[in-house]
């Protein structure tokens, strides 16, 4: 059962990703990205990362995608904006094919035996467990992230605010 869900969702996410980068209309791309996010959320849930699965839907498919759609709407992008991208795509296809082959070879030679390191506990992936680890073992990265977000905020404000003089 798990395997079947994994195969279906995996295939769907690859398919929607392709639609996202190949679509001519920006809105189509954005909506396929939403679909990819949903598929990824299911994949996370399969890995018993429940909190991440929910966050994936709430934050990415919800908040961030709404922002994307707003930007597309406000910039009023039209279909023709993406037309020229189909003229010389052979280089990209060639490069992508090579990268894909290397990836397949590397992943194919990886042994998938043994259970992942964190799965020992029953409560793995629950909100309580993630919260606990976030504020103990990963407290430093957690705090650096807040500095990172503050820096991004200050930078964004500095770049767009009106000059007084």
């Amino acid at each position, binding site marked *: 059962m798990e395997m079947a869900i994994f195969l279906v969702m995996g295939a769907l996410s690859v398919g929607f990703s392709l639609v996202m980068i190949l679509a001519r209309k920006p809105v189509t791309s954005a909506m396929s990205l939403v679909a990819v996010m949903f598929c990824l959320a299911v994949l996370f849930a399969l890995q018993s990362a429940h909190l991440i699965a929910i966050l994936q839907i709430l934050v990415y498919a919800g908040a961030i995608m709404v922002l994307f759609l707003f930007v597309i709407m406000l910039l009023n992008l039209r279909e023709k904006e993406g037309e020229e991208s189909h003229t010389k795509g052979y280089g990209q296809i060639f490069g992508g094919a090579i990268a894909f082959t290397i990836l397949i070879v*590397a992943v194919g030679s990886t042994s998938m035996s043994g259970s992942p390191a964190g799965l020992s506990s029953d409560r793995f992936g629950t909100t309580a467990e993630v919260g606990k680890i976030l504020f103990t073992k990963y407290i*430093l990265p957690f705090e650096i992230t807040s500095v990172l977000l503050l820096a991004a905020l200050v930078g964004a404000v*500095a770049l767009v605010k009106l000059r007084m003089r």
Partner: protein
Amino acid sequence: MEMIPLPQISVGAIAPELTLVAAAMIILMLEVFTISKGRDNLAYVALAAVGVAGYLVIESLGSPMTTFSKMYVVDDFSGFIKLVCLLGAGMTILMSVKYTRDEGIDGGEYYSLLLFATTGMFFMVSGADLITIFLGLETMSISLYALAGYARGRLASNEASIKYFILGALSSAFMLYGMSMIYGAAGVTNLHEIARIIGQNKENIHLVMLGGGLVLIGFAFKISAVPFHMWTPDVYQGAPTPITAFMSAGPKAAAFAAFIRVFSDALISLQYQWWIIVWILAVLTMTVGNLIALSQENIKRMFAYSSIAHAGYILVGFTAGGKLGESAMLFYLLIYTFMNIGAFAIVAIVGQQGEERTSVSDFAGLGYRHPLLGLAMVALLFSLAGIPPTAGFWGKYYLFTAALDQGYVWLAILAALNSVIAVFYYLRVIVVMYMREEKGESLPQNAFPASIVVVILVAIYGSVLLGITPGGYLALAASSSLAH
């Protein structure tokens, strides 16, 4: 109620970072409460923070420790690079006093972003875990993206910011993808643990190689190694001159430090796979950087290609590795910070308001109109070119002997040939300064505020006097290397 055991945390270990972040936030608050005229003083608040952080880093030298669940490490290696980053930040802040006034930039966000970038470098340098290193790198990069576009009135600055942002985000994605593969193969993110697990279990070695390659691309982008250098000329040319100076020193040193830590710690068992890649990168970076620099008319662009070439020289030391190679790299990063920021300070003086005079021909006759400034530029250019007895010469000498010592004879020969090419374009600026008489106007009296004079004097100290007595700093660099 379940008790959660707290891990061992030593807040004192991150005191320099805390100082910088606190100062950045204080500056943001102070800006609100000061009138426009008083905002120059924010620079000195930032400078004081850099000084305090420097003191704290020096205090921590000699007493290595690992804390925060082994994610953060304090050692002499990180201490040395942190001091280089602080030196770059301090010189940049002093350079910026006049620049922000001329360009009508409100100081608050500017200086706090500089401090945030420096904090990011600190976490990158001290990161003993892939997560810490990546977060530090992003904090640094995001602050730099904003700073590159700070001169909003100039189109080139906007272009620099957007180009740096898009390409930087792509390179971060490469690095993150690579890190996820290494994690997938090893199951841990701690650098020591990765080394141990990969060393024992060769099953997933292909995945680690692929991940290591992607991480290498990410670092190569940050140090602008050829062929990942395409962003450098445009960003260096478009960004405000003090920011260009800043980007060419601290971030590069921090990226090199993290590069060394990841590859000579976590991926040490793949050494025989990656040294050949770094060898090729070093040769390409030196050669392409120097050859393209020959034909540049804009001086900031020329220095951009020259900084690419210098990254190539430092990669020579990286290829050599070992204690000798690493200490040569550290020493070179230090003196490169001195001479490059000094040269950019002079470019900023000559450029004047709006950065309108940034072509090489704008330096014509400078040696006669402003003899002292001309002399300072000559000294810095000699040091950049590596002409004895300047510090630049000793830096190159140690790098190349490290390569020879490890048997990389061809690499040393190519590096030496490259420094000969480099002499040509540095000397060209001197020739323009002294041999081509032009009826250019003298710089106005207010072009030389005390702050920028201090920067140039510090640069002269670092690139000339340090060359006559390099002993102490070299010993410090040697005792700071990771390898023993």
